[in-house]
């Protein structure tokens, strides 16, 4: 009990630190992922969303948004893609995905587990990027033929990301403790 109190006070005092740490985690994963080869050009695991999910479940909605936006800004500066189309794609996809995940977690808590939330996020991420890419550069509706393929991969990547995040919850268990259990179920 005393340890719980202790960690809660740590959380209050160092929310800033925790968010910063999660941004760092997201950033490393983001940059790391940009260097590993992709199995298919359209398939991306979206490792960076592990940080978003951690922020969402260990902290709260606003933390998740802060983490995702900062991660994308810093990441694109690191990768030298600041304010070019790649950056706009990341930003729109990441932001929409996070907003949907926040909504699903906060309002549909009873309906979706972390897996559902993560899959919803992955699908939204892909869909948003596709729409924005079409609007920004491609301007060919043929690109929407990719929607079913990307949705199917998003189901798989979303599950993987949720699984990894869940593994990490146990490791992070003394990192942060919310009043409720980190897992909705």
């Amino acid at each position, binding site marked *: 009990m005393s340890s719980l109190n202790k960690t809660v006070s740590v959380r209050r005092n160092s929310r800033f630190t925790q968010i910063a740490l999660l941004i760092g985690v997201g950033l490393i994963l983001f940059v790391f992922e940009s260097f590993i080869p992709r199995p298919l050009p359209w398939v991306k695991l979206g490792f960076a969303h592990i940080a978003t999910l951690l922020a969402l479940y260990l902290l709260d909605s606003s933390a998740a948004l802060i983490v995702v936006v900062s991660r994308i800004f810093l990441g694109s500066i690191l990768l030298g893609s600041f304010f070019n189309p790649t950056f706009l794609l990341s930003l729109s996809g990441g932001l929409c995905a996070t907003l949907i995940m926040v909504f699903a977690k906060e309002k549909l808590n009873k309906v*979706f*587990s972390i*897996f559902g939330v993560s899959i919803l996020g992955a699908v939204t991420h892909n869909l948003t990027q596709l729409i924005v890419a079409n609007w920004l550069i491609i*301007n*060919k509706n043929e690109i929407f033929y990719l929607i*079913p393929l990307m949705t199917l991969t998003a189901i798989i990547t979303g599950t993987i990301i949720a*699984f990894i995040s869940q593994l990490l919850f146990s490791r992070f268990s003394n990192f942060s403790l919310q009043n409720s259990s980190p897992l909705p179920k």
Partner: protein
Amino acid sequence: MRKKNNTHSWLNIWRQLTNGDKILVFLLVISSVATLALLQSSEGSGSAVEIKIMNRHFATFPLKADTTFTVIGAIGETQISIAKGKVRVLQSDCRQKICVKTGWISRGGQLIVCVPNQVVIAVIGKKEEDFLNVITQ
């Protein structure tokens, strides 16, 4: 009991899924597979390659044309090759080379996109009806 279920193994994922999760996955899979099946049966191999650079139409080539050429995009050059009814990017000045890795495309509706260089290569579909809709120009 619940804690035990949370021992994180792949097999346990299924048990953790709520009904909402399952319905979501089911709906997504069904709709994707159905659309895929529809698209696969309606699009055969393509008949022409349309190239767009920085949002502007650059050229349309027939897929039969055996040719290699270089175009200038937003950040540099992209070398495109059309051969044996297929098209691919041979070389590109972009960093990640996703367009090069995409490899050959040949079916109607397939795309190669180079986001950094803003080059879009699209195979235009050859539906049966396409021959009956002819453009005069």
